[in-house]
């Protein structure tokens, strides 16, 4: 009866209690950081002696934070566009192509997800130093696209595997060109996969720390590099304010994803 929710008896109470504790553990840092960002203590005393918005004021008054956020947004957007475009054509080949070594190639394209980022970070850092691409936007975008590609390929390929190709063939029989059939039939059908790919590859770049630490220059810093630098010097509540805004962004993304999924599926 261990898999019947209503017949677990005392075990259900124990397991639910434990699950609640774990849920609290998972929520704790997220909720804590938001509360902390409104606390008035510079020394991060908690519960705070009073509530304030001054850390947000300090954050928005400092152009280097704004600059870093804009840099991150720019690099992540370009990464997402590139990764989805490259991932899309690659997924078609991986799912539909009939050639030997397909699984090996799939594995190769997904390897950046498995290799420890620090290894890739120093490799690409050395490589870009030689090419003169260190500390450039192009360098950032290329490196992040390598890391984001698996996160674009997996959802698109999964969606494509679930799509019945005979519908596309039917369009061709009815007179559409193969390209037309792909653009007007297949792509709209796998849009949830494409949309997930865009979100995941955006986040893969937006949250990326390790490559960014090596790649950054004094004039080109992403948001994670800026946070990393502040964390290493002191734990100012301004980081909590920046972090809370990131949490808000995450929540917004989750809600948009949930709504779009619901809309696209109906």
């Amino acid at each position: 009866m261990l898999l019947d929710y209503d017949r677990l008896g005392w075990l259900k109470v124990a397991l639910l209690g434990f699950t609640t504790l774990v849920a609290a553990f998972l929520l704790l840092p997220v909720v804590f950081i938001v509360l902390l960002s409104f606390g008035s203590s510079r020394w991060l005393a908690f519960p705070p002696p009073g509530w304030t918005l001054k850390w947000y004021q300090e954050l928005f008054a400092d152009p280097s934070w704004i600059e870093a956020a804009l840099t991150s947004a720019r690099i992540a957007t370009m990464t997402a566009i590139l990764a989805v475009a490259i991932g899309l054509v690659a997924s078609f080949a991986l799912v539909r192509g009939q050639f030997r070594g397909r699984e090996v190639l799939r594995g190769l394209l997904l390897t950046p997800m498995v290799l420890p980022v620090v290894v890739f970070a120093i490799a690409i850092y050395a490589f870009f130093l030689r090419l003169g691409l260190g500390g450039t936007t192009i360098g950032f975008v290329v490196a992040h696209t390598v890391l984001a590609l698996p996160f674009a390929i997996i959802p698109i390929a999964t969606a494509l595997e679930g799509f019945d190709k005979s519908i596309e063939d039917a369009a061709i029989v009815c007179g559409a060109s193969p390209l037309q059939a792909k653009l007007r039939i297949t792509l709209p059908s796998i849009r949830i996969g494409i949309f997930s790919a865009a979100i995941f590859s955006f986040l893969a770049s937006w949250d990326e720390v390790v490559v960014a630490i090596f790649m950054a220059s004094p004039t080109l810093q992403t948001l994670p590099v800026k946070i990393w630098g502040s964390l290493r010097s002191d734990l100012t509540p301004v980081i909590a304010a920046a972090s809370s805004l990131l949490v808000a962004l995450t929540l917004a993304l989750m809600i948009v994803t949930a709504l779009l999924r619901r809309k696209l599926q109906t």
Partner: protein
Amino acid sequence: MSVEAQQGIATPRIPAGLGGLLPALTLIGLFFVVPVLALLLRSVTDPSPGLQNYAALLGDGTYARVFFNTFLVAAVVTIVTVLVAFPVAWMLAIMPAALASILFGIIILSMWTNLLTRTYAWMVLLQRTGVINRALIGAGIIDQPLPLINNLTGVTIGMVYIMLPFMILPLVGTLRAIDPMTLRAAALCGASPLAAFRRILLPLSLPGIAAGGLMVFVMSLGYFVTPALLGGTSNMMLAEMIAQMIQSLLNWGLGSAAAFILLVVTMALYALQLRLVGSKRAAGGA
């Protein structure tokens, strides 16, 4: 009907072919494979040709400690993650849908929240004068603040926090695939809940536990950010040592040799995981 279309029907599987893979293969070949191979080359040529970098890494007690620590932390994190994740995944697999979706929401929120944000929160929570120490002292459980940060405890808490979703989510799939009838049958035949757990539920979920656990172990081995911020100098991990060798010491030979060792270990374990679960599921699970 166009000629094109007729051909399309005559050979319904027009190979989308290798052409579509060209951009992806160029990107990965030029900016992933080449740089990593160049790094490997550097590990046997910098400062002079030979294997002296590997000899130095494997023969020195200081480095041996880092290797040992890396495996120790990864092992502790994996065991704790599995133990915590299993009951949660179990409940998630069978609880009513409304309750489960709330719990999934919490898991996804924690997983999608910026990595540095989460680590920063733990730095503040765990410090000597942090909330947790104050609460424990306030409750009269301890009189002196516990050292919760810059040591194994801190790394373990921070890493388990990050790894939990990667263990829970695939495990839910494994547990949902188990037919509840098998356990009902066991109960009907007189098996105690403990026996049913030990002889049926646990063995049936073992493939999921092994695959998820291996993934958590591999990810932990190469982790950089959290150990660097929550760990202490005395239990430095491999990824942080590599970054230091390159960034602060500019010792490219030694750094790339250490990176190559990390690469080999990771890839070997990944290959093992692929054999356990098959390539598609392994990639999808990560």
